[in-house]
């Protein structure tokens, strides 16, 4: 099973933090509200990661192998 990673499209991201709300295990927030992705997405959280990608209001998140 290939590892999936969450990648941020940085010029689009405006630090709304919805990704952190939906997937706090993988996405933390830095001092200014921007996402810090901690490691690859565990298999059990893949669906939650897809939800986070879908709900980013700035379409700034992608799940890539």
């Amino acid at each position, binding site marked *: 099973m290939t590892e999936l990673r969450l*990648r941020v499209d*940085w*010029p689009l991201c*405006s630090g709304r933090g919805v990704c952190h709300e939906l997937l706090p295990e993988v996405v933390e927030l*830095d*001092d*200014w509200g*921007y996402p810090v992705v901690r490691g690859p997405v565990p298999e059990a959280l893949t669906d939650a990661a897809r939800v986070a990608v879908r709900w980013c209001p700035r379409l700034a998140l992608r799940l890539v192998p």
Partner: protein
Amino acid sequence: MITDGLLVETGPALLATVDDGPGLVAHRRRLGPRRTASAAEVLAAAEAVGLRGRGGAAFPFAIKLRTVLEGSRRPVVVVNLSEGEPLSAKDHALALVAPHLVLDGALGVAHAIGAAQVHLALPGERPGVRRSMFAALAERHDAGKVRCHIASPRFVAGQERAVIELIAGRENLPVTTWRPAATSGVRGRPTLLSNAETWAQLGLLLQGGVEAYRQLGTDSEPGTTLLTVTASGQPRLVRETAYGVPFGTAVPELVAPGRAGLVLLGGFHGTWVSRKRLARTALSVDRLRQIGAALGAGVVHLPPAGQCPVRRSAEIVALLAGESAGRCGPCRFGLPALGAAIGRLAAGTADATEVARLAALVTGRGACAHPDGTVRLVRSLLGEAEEEVRDHALGRCSYGTLGVPPVRGLAGRRAAS
């Protein structure tokens, strides 16, 4: 030779024609008529000499070329002359002294790979480069489809994706890359974007052949590279050096009296290195990696003896924070915060804990490597200037800077945003 505020020394290969002038006639007289090659020949030659990019990342050119050739669409060639690193002047020198070598390389390879377009990214703030390249293009008969673009006068404008954005008619700033430029760059085409010096090296390789190229340098790293030697109060010097030569020989200024203990190698996105250790090290990508340094854009910056590296680093970080494109949160907010933290260290009011924390926080987050380059500088300070950093944490400075009000960073060359 002094030209456009630079001192350009005659060199063994790239800079051999310094005294002949930049004209096409003299160039052809020296190197012969333009040779054509096939894509396979170019690839073989690049692999035979282990040609690495001269833009700062030292990426093997053959791998990039191979990726481009694997694409299904007709590729695009881009010559990056924008030289965003402020201390660097090697591309500037090449444009003034050997523009046709750069163009031979770019147009020769473009012809070999069947490129659909050839683009030239020129620096906004170095008009001498523009003039020289326009004159060189006008002299040639094979430069019909070369399109020129003027990059904005800021550091990040020279970044690979920023250049591709410029060519595509959008703002000259980096965007997040989902696929490498060699796979999908200008309008989705496989894009062979390289630094001007890389193209000049290819020009040399195509015109002179692999055997002649291998006459200089070492077996594992053949050829030469361009260095920009800078010291305050002196015009910048561009010098060509063969690989393998000890730094102390290649850059005698390193061992001249009146120099600080630490030098900055690679420019503002480079690393602080002990002057003495560097002088003993051979000019080699691998050897430098072993001592935790990198050639980067080929800048050797020699601060004067009385300058405090902590203070100087704080000034540089302040400048780099000002050069942020302001698009990506971690850079837009993180670099000024890092600047403030290192400023407090320089002022003797805090230790390096916050500096280290913020450095780790901004690394690898952003559309380009501007934060990463800045962090590289900061981490090299913490590693190489341990004593000075410790002193500052305790509110002391052996260079006597404390008690002197901090300088508000070099005025950034940032265009109005």
